[in-house]
């Protein structure tokens, strides 16, 4: 079935998003490059138990999905804004244990996305070595005696 279609409205475009879908949402720390209309259409569509992958999930547009309790997990690098007042829906739900958060350094998040799209199964990086991010991950030493992490 051809999937190369142009939709005449946002509701049609998100109609087939199912419960439990994993959705990557672009944008940085504000509206730039963010699909605001599609996000709102998805909120209206009501799909539940979503996983949202985005640089930030709280205090910007994707937050409406948390407010509508449609998300079970977030994968983000700087999930919330610097200020916690007013507290954003994502942060509220995370602190209440209603939403899971996987926090990832921004470069690692970017490369996981890129590598996945480029047919690669994983990579090693020095980012996060010696920090909580490295815990439980496979390690490898190079000839320069750097220690790398494996991130899939």
């Amino acid at each position: 079935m051809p999937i190369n279609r142009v939709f005449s409205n946002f509701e049609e475009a998100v109609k087939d998003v199912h419960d439990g879908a994993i959705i990557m949402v672009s944008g940085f720390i504000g509206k730039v490059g963010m699909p605001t209309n599609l996000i709102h259409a998805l909120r209206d569509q009501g799909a539940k138990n979503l996983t949202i992958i985005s640089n930030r999930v709280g205090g910007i547009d994707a937050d409406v999905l948390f407010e509508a309790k449609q998300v079970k997990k977030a994968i983000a690098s700087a999930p919330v804004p610097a200020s916690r007042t007013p507290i954003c829906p994502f942060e509220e739900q995370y602190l209440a244990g209603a939403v899971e958060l996987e926090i990832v350094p921004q470069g690692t998040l970017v490369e996981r996305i890129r590598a996945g799209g480029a047919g690669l199964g994983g990579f090693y990086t020095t980012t996060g070595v010696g920090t909580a991010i490295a815990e439980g991950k496979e390690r490898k030493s190079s000839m320069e005696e750097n220690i790398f992490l494996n991130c899939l």
Partner: protein
Amino acid sequence: MGNLIYRRTERNFNPLMAKAATITISEVDEIVDVGELAPEGREDPHLVNAGGQFVTLLPYASICDQAEAFAMIRGGHIDISVLGALEVSEEGDLANWFVPERRVGRIGGAMDLVAGAKKVIIIMYHATRDGRANIVKKCSYPLTGKKVVDTIVTDLAFFEITEEGLLLNEIAPGFTVEEIQSLTEPQFKVSQDLKEMEVEPSF
């Protein structure tokens, strides 16, 4: 700034090789200046820098995506990174992404920057409002990087982190070495060439 752009199929191997090489020597048609922050009222909503500030572009300006930006950072192509800190240890450990009271952290590019940049400069307040040292023997907050900090600039002093530990190079006008030491947890050495910080008035 050293950004390169290519015309059409001239790129082929160029960007990849430039990114992978230790030294890149490039034959270019034109050199252009860096743009400025956008003046108030003339912000373009599509144009922000890595800090979220609205900026302007000059002709032939270079824009890259996040994967490229982090390839530059993680690949060791950035000479200096300047970051803030909650704490820095005397061995150069940095903590700046998680505050226990908030319970949700913010990493962003910090871990990549300290892993990749050739030199890391930290800018921070020397102590908390109640006089607790931010330069410590061992960080108590979760780490951003281990042994990554090269120099620290505070409102009171300028330190270098050497093989032998903290070295005080500059001191703010009106302060003594003893006062600085009383606000710094680890013992530091004092440079033979200790001098006063040059302070520009900010208001």
